[in-house]
Structures are given as C-alpha cells and as structure tokens.
C-alpha cells in the first residue's frame, strides 16, 4: 500500500518541505526558498505545516515529503536513536532560533528570587537548551561532561537559588509568563503573544549544536531533486533573507549571528 515512488525521485515533482506549523517564521523561510531560490536550482518547493514532529520525521524518512528545517542535530539524533527504522540525515545548517530568558517581573537575572519558579519547555531538546541558558546566566551549574544538547534536570550540579522547574508547551509558556518568575523560551512565541522584547532579559548566541538543519531522508540523498534542494537551502540568499526580512527578524537568526 506504500506509495510506489517518492516525489523525491520523480523529476519535476513538487518537493514538500515541512515544519511545525506553529512556527510562522519557519514557514516564511520555506516560502522564501520556494519562491525566490528554488527556481534557480530548477526545482519546485512547497511548504507544508505539520504540528507533530514525529509525523514530520517519519514522513521525511519514508520520502512522503522531501525535508524539514524544524530541528537541530541533537534533536535529530534523539529521534534516530528512538526510531531505528528512520533514515534521516542533517544536510545543511540553515539558521538559529532566537531563544532567551524571559520575565514579566524582573529586569535582570540577578533579581530572580530564591525559590523562584522557572519554566522550561517540555520536550527534551528544548529543556536542554533552557538548562544551558540558565547555566550561561549563572543561575545553575551543570555536572562535568554534560553536553548542552542532552542536559536534563538530573544533570544540574548546583542550584544556589533553589529554582523550581515547570515544564510547559511552547504556546502555554508565553501565556503563563505572569505566573512565572522566569522562562526559557523561543522569541517567536513571546513576540506573537504580544510580549515586548524588553522582557527578554538574557539572550546569548546559541552554540552551533542548536542550529536549525535542513534534514532529508538518507535514502533520497543521492537523488537530483534532493541535491538541488540542499543546494537551494545553502544559497547565500537564505542568510541574507534571515538577516534582513522583517517577518523573521529576531526570531530566526542567520547562522553566523552572535
């Protein structure tokens, strides 16, 4: 019953690139590539929003869609570890996400009170990135040898302010900011919730590990279509777009942003 041939292997077929539909900025990026860059490489690209990350990865692996830009390497390796039947490759880093510490009540990290409530995202990779951020802000320290992409609360070495952690979903976290002392979250969800950027009280540049990658199905890496797709996303016009377009500015950062 499986589709006999993937669009990836069919010349001239439309290549679907999916992201999590909740991310308007990623959608804007894919649409930019589809409209402005893809024609240069002789392919036709289309955006598709899928809310569930598992579904996206499964579809990429099986060639139902051509690729996705929603994940970084760390996340992908987790996915592959958990689903040995998935065959996916991170082809090229495309952008970084705007990610920072937010607070409705305090204007600097130092003001966070003892026993304060801190929200992290509930998925493991973003939880890890949140912990890394807290470490950067000097609020906690992590055990030796903890890699930034896999940290869990168990990896916390010291927590001098006795912060309490609450795991929340993306959209729920920005809605709950008034009920929190601090939250580690993506810029996009805060701007969308009409929370002023001033409430982002700490936002260093993320390590390379957290760059958003164009991910493709390993089985299709050698097809003409996919080669062209990878080249399109690697085109400098993409970085230029990220640096200048108001739709994505501050939310998706160019890969070399500091």
């Amino acid at each position, binding site marked *: 019953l499986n589709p006999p041939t993937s669009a990836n292997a069919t010349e001239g077929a439309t290549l679907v690139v999916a992201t999590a539909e*909740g991310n308007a900025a990623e959608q804007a990026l894919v649409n930019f590539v589809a409209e402005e860059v893809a024609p240069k490489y002789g392919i036709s690209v289309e955006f598709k929003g899928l*809310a569930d990350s598992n579904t996206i990865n499964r579809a990429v692996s099986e060639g139902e869609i051509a690729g996705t830009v929603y994940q970084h390497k760390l996340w992908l390796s987790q996915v592959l570890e958990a689903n040995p039947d998935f065959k996916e490759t991170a082809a090229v880093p495309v952008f970084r996400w705007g990610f920072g510490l937010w607070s409705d009540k305090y204007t600097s990290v130092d003001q966070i009170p003892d026993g304060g409530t801190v929200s992290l995202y509930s998925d493991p990779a973003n939880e890890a990135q949140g912990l890394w951020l807290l470490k950067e802000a000097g609020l906690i320290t992590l055990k030796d040898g903890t890699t930034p992409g896999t940290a869990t609360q168990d990896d916390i070495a010291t927590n001098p302010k006795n912060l309490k952690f609450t795991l929340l979903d993306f959209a729920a976290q920005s809605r709950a900011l008034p009920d929190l002392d601090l939250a580690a979250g993506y810029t996009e969800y805060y701007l969308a919730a009409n929370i002023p950027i001033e409430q982002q009280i700490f936002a260093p540049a993320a390590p390379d590990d957290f760059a958003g990658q164009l991910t493709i199905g390993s089985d299709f890496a050698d097809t003409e279509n996919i080669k062209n797709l990878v080249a399109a996303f690697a085109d400098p016009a993409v970085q230029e777009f990220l640096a200048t377009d108001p739709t994505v500015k501050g939310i998706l950062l160019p890969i070399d942003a500091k």
Partner: protein
Amino acid sequence: MSIRSLNVPIDQIPALVFPALLDTLIMVGIVMLIVVLVGIPLGALVHNLAPGGLFENPPLHTTLSWIVSIGRSLPFLILMASIVPFTRFITGTNIGIAAAVVPMAIAGIAFFTRIVENSLRGVPPTLVRVAKASGASPLQIIRTAQLSEALPSIIGGLTINTIAMIEYSAIAGTIGAGGIGYVAVTYGYQRFDNTVMLATIVILVATVASVQLIGDRLVRLTTPHARTQARAPRVRRRETSLV
C-alpha cells in the same frame, strides 16, 4: 519589527478558514459513518454479553469491555502514534485526512460503543420479552426491540459523539489532516493570531450548535410522543393567525 506581518490578513481569513471547515466536515463525516457502522453492532454486542443480555457471557463481556476501554484510555496523540503501522497498512500514508480518519474512527468507535450500550440499558426489559414471545431471532430482537426503541437516545448520544469528534479532529490536525480545529490551534493558539482565533471559534460554535440542533430535531422526530406534542402548538398558532 512588525509582528502584525505574521498574522493572517483579515481578507485572507475566509480562504484559510472555509477550506479547513470543509476538511473538518469531510473528516468527521467519514469518521462518523464508520463509527456508526461499527459502534452500533459493537455496542449491542457488549450490551448483550453483559448479565441479563441476550447472549449473557461474563468472560467474553469482560474481555470485550477491556478492549473498548483501551480504545478510550489512550490520549489521542498517543493512540495516533501507537497505531502508525496499522494506519499505514489501511491508508498507505501517515499524514493527511485519510491517515487521521483511522485513529479518529478507533477513538470514536470506542466512545460510541459506550453510548450505545448506555442507551440500550434504558430499553424496558418487557419489550425484549415481547419480541422473544413473538418468535424473534436474536438479531431481530436487537434490531426491533433494542436499537429501534433506543433510537432517540442513540441519536442523542450520536450528537454528543459527533461533537467530540470535531474536537478530536483538531488534534488529528497535527498529522496534517488540517481542519478548522487545527487552524484554531496552530494559528489562533500557537501563533497568537486573535483574528483567526475568533473566526475559527465563531465557525466552530456555529458548526457545533448546528450539529446539536439537527441532533435535537432528529431526537424529537424519532420520539412519537415528542413529535405529536411539538406539532400541535405550531399549527394552533397558524390557525390563530388565519382568524
């Protein structure tokens, strides 16, 4: 930085919302068709395997009841994930409306089985005796004495179930099935786009209220004493206006 630019412009909302509504109607329509076709026999079976039923069989009843409970236990996202191979086997894909229909139908069937079971429990036992005395086969008893007499209550339950499925379709949207509920969640909830949120809410409320209205009317139409009762005043009013 312009946040507005991310939001859907008002004039594009119909183009976003109406196809989504159509998707929802198709999805829920197909699902409910399957749910009714499978849930009614299944509900009748569970009811009649229970103590006092036509084929009273406690071990089998317990087994079947557990299976139905499993269908009702899993959070819908998990159910969708657990049956991925099955969904692909049936529909050949794991995304889109076709793929959403399978887990929705499973959840819906489990739900409706309980609704049917509960409705059948309300049928006076005498009617089953009458059917038996009249020489009815078990299938005929189920059809004429149980399902037919419980019909208004089953339709009432079907209404409840259909509306629950509209809600499920919002979750099923995560696997690319789209639908109005999904637009509400991704645009309204995740993108904080209040215009879309409002538009989808209005459409959802109108859809649900229409389903409820149709359901209520069907219940009335299938209940003889409600039907005859309801007709009288309407005509009387007409008569008055003629005078």
